[in-house]
């Protein structure tokens, strides 16, 4: 330890620590620009100069090492003079106009100007004349604003080891860039964003800035996009390192069905994955699947929390993902939880909606077993008609009944023999019951459920299958993958169709369609459909399956207020899941309509939090299951990184898969998984980088 004195304040600091950080950490502000806490000292900007007692002249405090007895003055006339001169010089090559700069208000240089107040108008000003480089994905370079603090160069070289950004010189103007002005992708940039993170000015900036969300959410968009906020970069890194048990534990910190999600999650995270700007988005779901498939449970088993029994009793009605999740976490909070399921097994839509060729039933059983082992009592084949009566026995009730009633469109022929609803069809197929379908099937609808129906029909032996929907191909809500695979299996897909009528005479003979010319929404979000004149046409069929949405299978008789689409009304979709009856809560598809498993899980978690609080708990269901991950910021060089292509899963050929219900997508293979996980940009590493210390931080402290 060394005792140093800065402006009369005695500080005890580690030997040889740089004086600038000593001062900043002890509440003494010294202006600085090229210095960054996580980077080696450079001493080039001269903002941080100080005087040392007994030494002539000034010295940069960022390169000055603390030694016992050092006496430092940060504000002397000479220091002020030289700082002003340095800043005056620095600004001669920087645009004078601040207000047009995207960094306005967050610019460290701007704050430096306000603090130091340099002279103006004396020196020769210039525009460097560099063209802004906007061709790169994610990162924008505007070297005219650069003051050559060199932080980005050090971040790229020392901190990350990627070595893409270097000082370059053109004519007599020094600038930062890639060798020979290559695009970042061609220079093997890894798009970690450290350069943009440390840039004090508006020179290197993120192209995508979502100022609506919190900084860490904008920086790591996948984690934010996931409804349950699974820590995606963290588990991808574990998978890359072959640590599948750790990866599964990370996933389990947020969701109790890692494996099911690995097979069928709608992966909205991938839509926001920054990697997609560089080449293709990460296969987040398939990486999760690999981790879950290879998990032995050695890390998470026996680790989660189980609070002491509270004596409170909870009944969860409906054993789908929302109900199972809520039951699991409520049990962990110490409540006595009973789950009542109307069907013979739990799983909800995972078991009775999603076909088994996408999600094998053993997976649901295995994951539900974990919940049962936690102490949740499961009663199957138990349909609850009057939830309010449960309150006689239970302190709280949660309605997670999902949406098991299909929607029948109001159109001619909708009640003919041969018309089937999606939910009934899929449920019957799942249970091995007679579905009532014929040989020539017409599925009406363009979502994932419609494709589940069409492909299930194929597997049940239908001879000809047509799928028609209102939306144009590009805006169909089903996953592209789903659509393409269906076509491969011989299913005819007809986008942009209006359903005119179901033909027949009490028995379906087909459907009349017209082509859609345009399909838009007006300002009141009402659909406006323009049909193509003379485009009437007919498709023959003996079966029509409506796949145009589902709603909760409940009536007013249950005693709960219902809203749009027969959904159970709650006080607030997110913040308050209480229904019209005190003590009864609702969550999942039952309150917001058919969405996804991951949404249902999040809804179940949120319901568990609110109900735990209602029952007197603290509502904290968070768990730490995975060990702390040591992050290595030095990601190093990786030739061709930007061009690395997505690794695809192994999928059985259409002819061998389309006549049976066996799983046909076998995930990413062992030899590809590490490479796929290695494509991750590791956006979260950026959050480790220290935020700038500005004058404002200090003046606020003083006022407080």
């Amino acid at each position, binding site marked *: 330890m060394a005792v140093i004195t800065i402006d009369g304040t005695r500080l005890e600091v580690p030997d*040889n620590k740089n004086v600038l950080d000593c001062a900043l950490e002890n509440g003494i502000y010294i202006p600085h620009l090229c210095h960054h806490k996580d980077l080696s000292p*450079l*001493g*080039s*900007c*001269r903002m941080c100069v100080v005087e040392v007692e007994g030494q002539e*002249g*000034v010295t940069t405090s960022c390169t000055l090492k603390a030694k016992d007895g050092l006496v430092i003055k940060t504000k002397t006339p000479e220091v002020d003079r*030289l700082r002003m*001169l*340095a800043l005056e*010089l*620095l600004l*001669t*090559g920087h645009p004078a106009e601040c207000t047009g700069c995207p960094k306005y208000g967050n610019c460290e240089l701007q704050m430096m100007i306000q603090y130091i107040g340099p002279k103006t108008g*004396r*020196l*020769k000003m*210039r525009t460097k004349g560099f063209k802004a480089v906007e061709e790169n994905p994610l990162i924008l370079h505007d070297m005219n604003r650069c003051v*050559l603090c*060199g932080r980005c160069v050090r971040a790229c070289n020392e901190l990350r080891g990627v070595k893409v950004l270097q*000082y370059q*010189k053109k004519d*007599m*103007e*020094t600038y930062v860039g890639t060798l020979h002005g290559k695009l970042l992708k061609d220079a093997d940039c890894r798009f970690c964003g450290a350069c943009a993170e440390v840039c004090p000015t508006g020179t290197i900036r993120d192209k995508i800035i979502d100022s609506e969300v919190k900084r860490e959410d904008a920086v790591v968009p996948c984690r934010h996009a996931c409804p349950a906020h699974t820590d995606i970069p963290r588990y991808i890194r574990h998978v890359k390192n072959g640590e599948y048990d750790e990866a599964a534990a990370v996933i389990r910190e947020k969701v109790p069905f890692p494996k099911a999600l690995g097979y069928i999650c709608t992966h909205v995270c991938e839509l926001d994955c920054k990697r997609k700007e560089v080449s293709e988005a990460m296969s987040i779901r398939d990486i999760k699947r690999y981790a879950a498939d290879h998990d032995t449970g050695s890390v998470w088993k026996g680790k989660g929390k189980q609070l002491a029994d509270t004596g409170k009793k909870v009944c969860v009605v409906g054993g789908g993902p929302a109900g199972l999740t809520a039951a699991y976490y409520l049990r962990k909070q110490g409540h006595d939880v009973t789950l009542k399921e109307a069907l013979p097994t739990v799983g909800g839509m995972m078991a009775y909606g999603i076909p088994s060729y996408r999600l094998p039933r053993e997976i649901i059983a295995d994951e539900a077993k974990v919940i049962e082992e936690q102490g949740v009592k499961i009663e199957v084949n138990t349909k609850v008609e009057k939830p309010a009566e449960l309150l006689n026995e239970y302190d709280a009730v949660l309605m997670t009944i999902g949406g098991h009633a299909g929607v029948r469109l109001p159109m001619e022929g909708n009640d003919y023999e041969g018309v089937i609803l999606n939910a009934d069809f899929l449920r019957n197929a799942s249970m091995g019951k007679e579905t009532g379908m014929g040989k020539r099937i017409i599925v009406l609808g363009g979502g994932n459920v419609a494709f589940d129906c069409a492909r299930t029909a194929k597997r049940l032996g239908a001879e000809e299958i047509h799928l028609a929907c209102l939306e144009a191909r590009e805006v169909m809500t089903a996953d592209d993958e789903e659509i393409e695979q269906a076509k491969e299996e011989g299913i005819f897909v007809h986008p942009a169709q209006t359903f005119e009528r179901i033909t027949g005479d009490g028995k379906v003979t087909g459907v009349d369609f017209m082509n859609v010319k345009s399909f838009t929404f007006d300002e009141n979000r009402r659909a406006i459909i323009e049909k193509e004149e003379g485009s009437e046409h007919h498709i023959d069929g003996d079966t029509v399956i409506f796949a145009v949405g589902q709603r909760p299978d409940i009536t007013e008789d249950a005693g709960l207020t219902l809203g749009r689409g027969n959904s159970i009304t709650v006080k607030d979709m997110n913040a308050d899941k209480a229904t019209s009856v005190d003590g009864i809560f609702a969550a999942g598809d039952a309150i917001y309509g058919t969405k996804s498993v991951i949404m249902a899980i999040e809804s179940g978690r949120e319901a568990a939090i609110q109900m735990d609080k209602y029952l007197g708990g603290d509502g904290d269901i968070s768990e730490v299951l995975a060990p702390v991950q040591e992050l290595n910021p030095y990601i190093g060089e990786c030739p061709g990184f930007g061009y690395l292509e997505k690794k695809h899963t192994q999928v059985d050929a259409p002819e061998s898969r389309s006549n049976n219900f066996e799983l046909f997508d076998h995930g990413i293979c062992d030899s590809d998984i590490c490479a796929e996980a290695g494509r991750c940009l590791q956006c979260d590493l950026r959050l480790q980088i220290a935020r700038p210390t500005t004058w404002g931080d200090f003046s606020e402290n003083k006022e407080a």
Partner: protein
Amino acid sequence: MSAIENAKQMSKEEVVEKIAALDLMEYGLCHEKLSDRLNAAVTEAQEEGKELGVVAALNNADTDKVLLEVLKADPAKVMEGIAIAAYAMGAEKMSIQIPEEDTKTAEAVKEAADAAGVEIVMSIVDIRANKGSAILHIVTAANLADAFADKYEAGVYVSVNGEPVKKAACDTKVSDVADLSGAKAVLAGYNYYTPETIADMTVAEANIDNGVLKVLGEKDCIVSETEKKVTASRRQSCGKCVFCREGLLQLQAMQKDMTDGKGKEDYMAITKEIGEAMRFSTPCTMGQTSSEIALSAIDLFESEYVAHYKKKECPAGVCFSSETVYIDPKLCTGCGDCMDVCPKDCIEGKAKFIHMIDDFDCDRCGKCIEECPENAIIKTSGKLPKLPNRLTKVGRFKR
């Protein structure tokens, strides 16, 4: 036995002791005992946890590079000197830095460097990246090799007015190596001197740290000369440090304004303020020394600056772009004599074609005017006649 063999007969410590006893000094801008310099690098490497090394180079500030001759004359000797220093420090990493554009020299010394295990790096020295290395002047390395071959004689390398470099004994008077008659100023190393002050100095006293001794006469403009030197420094600077990058730019811009008749009185004070701050505001000699030329110019030759910014006059008749040298297309016979004498290589032409002067590079020295047998080359401050803008056969140019 060779110098390095001699050194290796001794222990490391004995080598350092011998260097200290011989009183060998670091050549160039960093005047200090070589033994201290080696020891300081060892200490620095320990403190910073860096690899020990030896780097030989010119001073970063040296834009004339005449001392490279010492390397070119005997590459093996310089490599030997590097190896002795490395042996004394216990270092394995050795490199020699050669100016980026000088691939010729790099090729010429490659064999010797490879043989000695010295890496060739084509740039000025990055002081920060070479922490833990002793940075030696190329001449220091040569001297060290001489010392261990018992051939060392102290002396100063001097190139007078662009003549080949010669080694002069330390006590040689400047006036004995250079003809100072008719001199207005003398550029010695990085500073100007008046002829009166430098005449009595020895070469050792005159700080001829880069080997350059240039006598300026009445026809040389101090301002223009300074502008060229500062521009050369700007070209050479790596541009990482504020004072070197931006300071040099300001110094150059002010000199340029002066030569263009746009100078202001303020410039004198600003030059002084920036120039003096540069001395201690950068880590290497590039920034520390490159302002000296401007500082000594305004200090010693203030009146020339005053003439430039107050009266818009260049006492040497060099400045102001209003003065142009051109070739009269009617008189030129295309003999090519002017091309041969032009020191700036800025005359274009071929036999029987009208020659043309590139005004941008022309420094109006007037050598071509004297040479032209047809008196076809004219210096004027007035309006130019119409001139050809591409090569035109003699006699074909029409007004």
